[in-house]
């Protein structure tokens, strides 16, 4: 999920797990919404320059590693799809601005499990009903 970039904005981010941030991804940077999934000990450490993120997409449908989230939960302007199979490392200076809401601990547990299904064939999995 993207929005127009905000050039020149570079702040030292202090993200926390479960927060949604606008991040500048790619070269040149394009603004995307991402979810912080790394542990806060890492996020807050000034000895680690990166965090683990999962990006949101604006298009998709639910699958083993994709979860649809509504604006009421995320604070984002439209329904969005969290894509666990794209979990990646991102330098903190690419985080531009904290957005939306913080996802609940129970939702984060569900998301952790979803991410694990991208690399662990033995991860617990119950197919979701419905989808887009």
């Amino acid at each position, binding site marked *: 999920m993207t929005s127009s970039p905000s050039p020149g904005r570079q702040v030292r981010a202090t993200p926390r797990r479960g927060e949604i941030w606008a991040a500048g*991804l790619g070269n040149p940077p*394009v603004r995307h919404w991402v979810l912080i999934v790394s542990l806060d000990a890492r996020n807050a450490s000034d000895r680690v320059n990166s965090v683990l993120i999962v990006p949101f997409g604006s298009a*998709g*449908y639910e699958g*083993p590693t994709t979860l649809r989230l509504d604006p009421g939960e995320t604070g984002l302007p439209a329904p969005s799809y969290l*894509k666990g199979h794209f979990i*990646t490392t991102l330098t903190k200076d690419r985080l531009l601005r904290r957005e939306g809401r913080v996802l609940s601990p129970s939702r984060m547990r569900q998301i952790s499990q979803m991410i694990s299904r991208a690399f662990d*064939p033995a*991860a617990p*999995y119950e197919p979701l009903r419905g989808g887009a």
Partner: protein
Amino acid sequence: MKTSVPRQKISTTVSPETHRYLKSLVKAGRAATIAEAVDMVVRRAKRAENRARLERDTAAYFANLPASVQREEARLETVLAQSADEVLFDE
């Protein structure tokens, strides 16, 4: 540490082959009783089912992506790869 779970009593019959197999698990020390051997075999079957379901649904997800989603995922792959390129893993 082993935790005790409430157990359900059932009475049933199984094929001689199944019985031999369950007894072999007990004899090999992999289960303490025939009942535990049954539990173990069922656990294994459930894990295998879970694994097969995950593989199948993952394949179906990527195989059935509509063109618009496929385009977005390809774009995400590109920008994420570019962004990850600058991470120093010796930090």
